[in-house]
Every structure is written in structure tokens, then in C-alpha cells.
């Protein structure tokens, strides 16, 4: 792990707490520190653009990580250097809900921008799960939702055309950002990924991604440039769903 520790308690001003799993864990305290009722251990850290978690490094996960600010992605690395992005992490996401039960991560995490993260104490969360039925249910739904997102990602990879795969990838991301109130303007969303990153998320080559992005822009569907995605025509964008679950 490559993190720089941070001392201040940033949860008070967090813009995504109320729309993420954190709302179930952290009391809304008006002060600059957690309320006494909040008995969770929290370590806040910042990292620049690099690999912050490496798979199969023992005992890295003394507790689950929450991405507080910035963008990152979870990925699988092949011995020959190939990689597959498994999921994009946006502010408010846990790296994986299941890391509460798996101390040795079987994935790596790379930050796409400068990020701030919070590592929560495993024992504290597990204790709360046994005491609070609402939290227990919310955690169960979070796990289900993580699996559902991964399944949708798999299905998206069965799209035949490069443009369909990219549209599917962006659609799912825009939906998640909208639910968390993350947007630049009505039809513009942040997307700080390189074409190589998008290629690794969609199983395409960077050249195929470049061509597909050109086609999508030319056909007035979406524009991906300057670390942003602009929805040019909402109807066309939403209609581009040729491989949805029936």
C-alpha cells in the first residue's frame, strides 16, 4: 500500500456520505471530530496516482477501505502484464464490501486521480453489524449490489461492437454517479480515465476505443474528452442498450 496518512477528520464535510454506505456507520456530527457514539476506528490517507493496493499481499486489509475523494479502479493483473479492470470506484464506494471478511485482497487497486481514503476498523464494523439490524440489512444489500454490478459488467462484455461496450460502460457509471449526486453539469460527468484504462475495462484495444469514441461523438451520442463524458443526446444514449438483461 502506498498511502500518506492524513490527520483531520473529513467526514463532517463529506458530500457523498449521505448517499453511500457510510451514512449507516458514521454519525453526522456538527463538530470537527467524530461524536463519542461513533466508536469506529478510522484512518484517513491520501495517495497520488499509483497502485495503492496490490493483490495477494497478506494482511493489507486490516479493515475495509472507503474511497472518500477521487477516482480509482479495482483490477486483476495477469502474470504476462495484461490487466482487466473489474470495477470503477467513485467517491463513497468501498473498495469491496467483502474485504470485511477477506484480509488478503485478490485484486489490486489503482488510483486514477489523487485520492483520499478512509480505512475503517474491521472489528468495530463487525461489532456494529451484530448490534444493529438496520446496518446488517444495509450491509447485506451492499454485498448483493456489488455482485449485481459485477454481473452487469460481465454481461456488458458480451456486446459485439466496441461502441456498444463503451456505451454500456459509461451508462452504468453515469447511473451510479447520478445516484450519488456526482456531476459537473446536467449532462456532463467526470470520467478521469485514459483510453488505455477504458480499453482494459471493456476488453478492447486502445485503438478500438479511440475509433468507437470517434463514432459515438460523430453520431451525437456521447463525447469523451478532457476527463469528462458529455451526454450529447439523452434519448440516443439511453436507447443504446442492445444487450440488457431481459
Amino acid at each position, binding site marked *: 500500500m502506498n498511502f500518506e496518512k492524513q490527520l483531520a477528520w473529513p467526514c463532517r464535510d463529506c458530500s457523498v456520505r449521505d448517499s453511500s454506505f457510510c451514512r449507516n456507520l458514521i454519525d453526522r456530527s456538527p463538530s470537527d471530530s467524530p461524536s463519542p457514539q461513533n466508536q469506529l476506528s478510522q484512518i484517513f490517507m491520501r495517495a497520488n496516482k499509483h497502485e495503492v493496493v496490490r493483490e495477494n499481499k497478506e494482511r493489507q486489509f486490516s479493515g475495509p477501505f472507503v474511497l472518500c475523494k477521487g477516482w480509482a479502479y479495482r483490477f486483476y493483473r*495477469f502474470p504476462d502484464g495484461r490487466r*482487466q479492470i473489474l470495477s470503477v470506484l467513485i467517491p463513497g464506494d468501498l473498495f469491496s464490501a467483502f474485504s470485511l471478511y477477506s484480509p488478503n485482497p485478490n485484486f489490486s487497486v489503482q488510483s486514477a486521480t489523487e485520492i483520499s481514503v478512509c480505512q475503517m476498523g474491521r472489528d468495530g464494523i463487525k461489532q456494529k453489524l451484530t448490534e444493529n439490524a438496520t446496518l446488517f440489512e444495509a450491509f*447485506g444489500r451492499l454485498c448483493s449490489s456489488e455482485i449485481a454490478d459485477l*454481473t452487469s*459488467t460481465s*454481461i456488458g462484455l458480451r456486446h459485439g461492437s466496441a461502441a456498444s461496450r463503451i456505451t454500456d460502460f459509461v451508462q452504468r457509471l453515469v447511473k451510479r454517479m447520478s445516484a450519488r449526486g456526482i456531476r459537473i453539469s446536467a449532462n456532463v460527468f467526470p470520467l478521469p480515465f485514459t483510453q488505455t484504462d477504458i480499453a482494459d475495462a471493456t476488453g478492447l484495444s486502445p485503438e478500438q476505443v479511440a475509433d468507437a469514441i470517434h463514432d459515438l461523438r460523430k453520431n451525437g451520442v456521447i463525447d469523451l474528452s478532457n476527463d469528462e463524458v458529455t451526454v450529447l443526446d439523452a434519448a440516443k444514449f439511453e436507447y443504446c442498450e442492445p*444487450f440488457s438483461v431481459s
Partner: protein
Amino acid sequence: MNNSKTYSPPRSGCDSCILDGLGLCNLAIDCGRERPPKGGRANITQGEKTQNAKRTIFSQNEPVETVAILCDGWAASTLRISKGRKQILSFLLPGEMLTFRALFESGRYHSTEAITPVSYRVFDQSQFRNAMFASQNIFDRIMAGYSEERCRADQMIVDLGQRSATERIARLLLDIWTRLEKSGKVKDNSIAFPLRQTHIADATGLTNVYVGKVLTAFRNERLISITGRTLTMLDIDKLRRQAA
């Protein structure tokens, strides 16, 4: 316990059952594998069901009222996707939960289909959840199984995104082999293997023809042999290298 009155033979999945030793399954109590809790029976409404091969056990989108454990036979979690195509999300083996997602959801996201004749045990969903909430031990065991489902979902993305046909099929065979090996179901370097080419095709996003070609190549390279419904492992190290 009076076994002469209540004895039921254990099922093939009992040895590797995710619920083994948790005191939740009345079958395990009846067949003498587990000591009965106070009152003599587990505190969850439950029952055993069977289904024929190639029939649906649970349908996509139907309401969830139960969680189920596969006791005998093989099944598959399947998702219908548009254009008449199907994706097999995972193969389910004896002793495994049919889907962990059923624990916390009100509707079934995917179907479960029997590959062979199956028997499975159903538990009331809300009572099962209450048992998890009440016991750290039960919660930890279920979450460990659920984590494996997450790993399989990750690997499906890697399969469809990056792996070649050879890598996908080799990895699938090794995954099944490893799971059966853990539960002691490898005999004479062979496992029961009721999958058809069409199952492998639906699980790996390939065509039946392509699957046939890869399996023939594996046979010709003497990595595996498939005879009837038995798979024999001939060179697991080489197959591992093929799986990347």
C-alpha cells in the same frame, strides 16, 4: 436422539455443506451428523425438494421467500440476456448455496436450473437472516461463501474481457476440479462431469463449435479425457499453464 425413528441418509453434499456444524439443518440432525439444539429441531422453517434434470428450480424475477442449499446433483445460475442468449453465471455443486444474493433481495435476479436431477433444502429467508444476525459464527461462515461468489463474479469479467477461449475453458475446468477436490469428490484422478458443450459455451461466452475445438485440443494434448460423464485429469500442471 432416537435415530431409528428419524434417521435420514446424508446427501452427497453434506460433507462439504456450507451449513455443516451450524445447527441450522434438520437433515443433518436427523442423520446424526449434528447434535440437535434445545427443543430437538433447528429453529428455521425448512424442507427438502427435488427437481428433474434440465428443469427450472427458481425463475428469474420471481419473489424470494427462501434460501436454498444444493444437497445432491449439479445446477447452474443462469441469466437470460436479450437476443435469445443466455449467460451461465456459475455452476453449483452439492453443499453450496444456490445463490447468496437471495439472502438480502426480494426478487430473484437470475434463474437456477438443474443440470442433473437435484435435491435441495429450502430455508425461510427471513428466519435464516435472523439466524445470521444472531450468530457471528453463522454470519462469518455465510460471508466466507459469499466472498467466493464475489471472486467468481470477478473472474467472469476477466474471462469475458481478456481471456482467450483456451484460457476460459481451462480455468472453468480447474475451478470445478478444485471445488470438488476440496469436498473430497476426486476419485482415481477423476470427477463426475455432467456438463455438455452447450453448458460450457453458455458459461464462457463462446459458441458450441469453439468449445468442441478447444476440448478436442485438450484431449489431443493429453491434458484431460472426458468419457461419458466422467472427467479424468491427465496433466493438471499443463492445464494450469493454459488457464493463465
